[in-house]
């Protein structure tokens, strides 16, 4: 099996979502959107399972693989929040963003085939990465809501309340990811925290959300809340994809992930 199969799964998911959203909008049927959302999710999940059994290692190592999981969780969170809060624009945004990540993977296939180096063969590998991806997916959701709230200035309040609920969940997972990483680092490299550039940027991301959590009770319903969420998510993206380009990262131990 090679990438050709992912093209089938990926394009099918995107197409089903697209058709679901279009028909759902025309017929004013939320159910259609939701069903298409879940079918796409099942397709991605099936691909992950098949791919996992094919490569004989957890598919969590490369950036492309993290994007794959991310697309999956983002769509899943979109679907679940849709059931919970019935926010239609949100499921559309999360399915669109998920499609973007699928497309990036279809267009940049080369990072798929990599074997697992000894330092990554650990029981911490799966919890560490999955927890991070879940955190990233929740925080992306808060980012989408923040952007929407900034455009729609009349009802800022509503967006801040929604974003808040999601940020706390995302921040909890982000903290777990950081801590699992520390525990793993102790086993693999001898120290739980070495200020490796990837660690430093993960910490920066964490502090950015920490600022948000401490600041928003003081800011109450001010729009600044939403700006902070946007900045924090930009920092998260730098941590995820941008660290390798920084001068500080030339000796990073996380270099395998790039």
């Amino acid at each position, binding site marked *: 099996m*090679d990438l*050709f199969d992912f093209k089938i799964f990926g394009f099918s998911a995107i197409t089903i979502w697209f058709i679901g959203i279009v028909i759902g909008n025309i017929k004013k049927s939320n159910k259609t959107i939701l069903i298409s959302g879940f079918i796409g999710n099942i397709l991605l999940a099936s691909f992950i399972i098949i791919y996992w059994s094919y490569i004989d290692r957890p598919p969590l190592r490369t950036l492309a693989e993290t994007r794959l999981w991310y697309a999956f969780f983002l769509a899943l969170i979109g679907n679940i929040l849709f059931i919970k809060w019935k926010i239609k624009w949100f499921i559309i945004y999360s399915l669109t963003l998920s499609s973007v990540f699928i497309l990036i993977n279809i267009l940049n*296939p*080369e990072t*798929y*085939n990599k*074997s*697992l*180096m*000894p*330092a990554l*063969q650990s029981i911490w590998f799966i919890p560490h990465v999955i927890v991070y991806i879940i955190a990233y997916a929740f925080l992306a959701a808060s980012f989408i809501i923040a952007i929407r709230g*900034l*455009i729609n*200035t009349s009802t800022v309040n509503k967006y801040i309340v929604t974003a*808040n*609920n999601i*940020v*706390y*969940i995302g*921040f*909890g*997972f982000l*903290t*777990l990811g950081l*801590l699992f990483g*520390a*525990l793993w680092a*102790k*086993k*693999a*490299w*001898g*120290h*739980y*925290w070495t*200020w490796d550039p990837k660690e*430093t940027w993960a*910490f*920066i991301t964490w*502090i*950015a959300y*920490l*600022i948000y959590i*401490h*600041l928003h*009770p*003081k*800011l*109450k319903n*001010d729009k*600044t809340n939403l*700006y*902070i969420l*946007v*900045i924090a998510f930009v920092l998260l993206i730098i941590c995820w994809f941008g660290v390798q380009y*920084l*001068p*500080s990262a*030339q000796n990073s131990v996380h270099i395998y992930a790039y």
Partner: protein
Amino acid sequence: MSANKWDFSIFRVIPLLYKMSNKKQIWQYPWQFKESLIILSTAIIISFILDFIDKSNTILKPVFPYNIYILLAIFVFDTLIFISFRKTNFVKWLQSGYLAISTIIWLFILVIIMGIFEQNNQSEGLIYNLHLNNIIYSKSFIIVEFALFTNLLMVIYSKLNEFSIRNFSFITNHLGILILLISLSFGAGDIEKYNMKIDTQNYVWGVSSKDKTTELPFALKLNNFYIDMFPAKITIVENKTDNIIDDNSNIISANKDSVIIFNKYKISLLKYYNNGVFINNKFYSVNDQGAAPTAMLCIKTKHSTDTCYVSCGSYMYPSKVYSLDTDYTIVMLEPEPKLFKSDVKIIYKNSETENISIEVNKPINIYGWDIYQTDYNKDMGKWSEYSIVEIVKDPWLNIVYIGIFMMIIGAIGIIFLGKKKI
């Protein structure tokens, strides 16, 4: 409102907070964001000036027992202040969210600097003078740590008298961070970390770094270094650019029945040898010193069928490639390690010996020393004649684990309890 809805005044956080506490005169209690930011920023700017004047760039890393003395002194001092003045506005400020936010913002700024400039390198000029290449040992970082310490301790004290699930989550989070902060700042000086190169010839008793030599209560000798490689991958290189043709379908890995179909060629794997040598251009599948992974391939076109060998070579033998045509060549890539470990013999002071193996991700612990497999002679690969292990002693480790454990509980609390309804 709508005119400036996209004004992107991202930096209005600080003016806004300023405004928030602006209803009263400055320095009039209760102190809020304005006062917190002025006090903290003044302290940090002074510490930057001090760092700039102090050309020696001394690293402030107290070791046992001085770190304990300093920690206790600060702890007792803070506690006494809390007990004596707990009803005052000053202590209320010390435990306030305003001080927390100011401190976290400064922590954020310092860590951003750390994330941009490479740390611990030999910089010159302003970066060096301001300690920007060594932030965690700069005076400004110590100010932030001190402010965090005091703020966290005070807020924990103030929350101790009321019990609820939400409060429990709050305390585990904040106490966990406080414990981690203490062990990272005060414990750093007590960590001993050395690289030890071991071989099959002699026992190594002591370890040394730049400034210190330590005798260990045991000695190590390498019995056998073992390395297991992933099967090497076979792929196609464009001669003109020397680049691998970047597509997954152009890679054969030995454990799969994969086939490369490239231009008019169909390339398949006939047999994969983990070890082999070429003598006078003839292949022998033997496991001698320097033997290298080798593959026998079948290359088919419409009109012809050919077999060939490719090998990635080793430190003793050159690699072997196969020219498809003038533009493309089949090569074997260097195999990646799957597992490496050292079977070592340990001898203790009382002459008792023990055989044990040290593997990546599976360190061993002897008398409080953690021993990690880290490196070997990469040029020689599986024929490496030595192994490098890292030997670490961190007396604060259990305290760190307590902190991490509390924060895990706290994080689960955040996920399930979420935001307090206001």
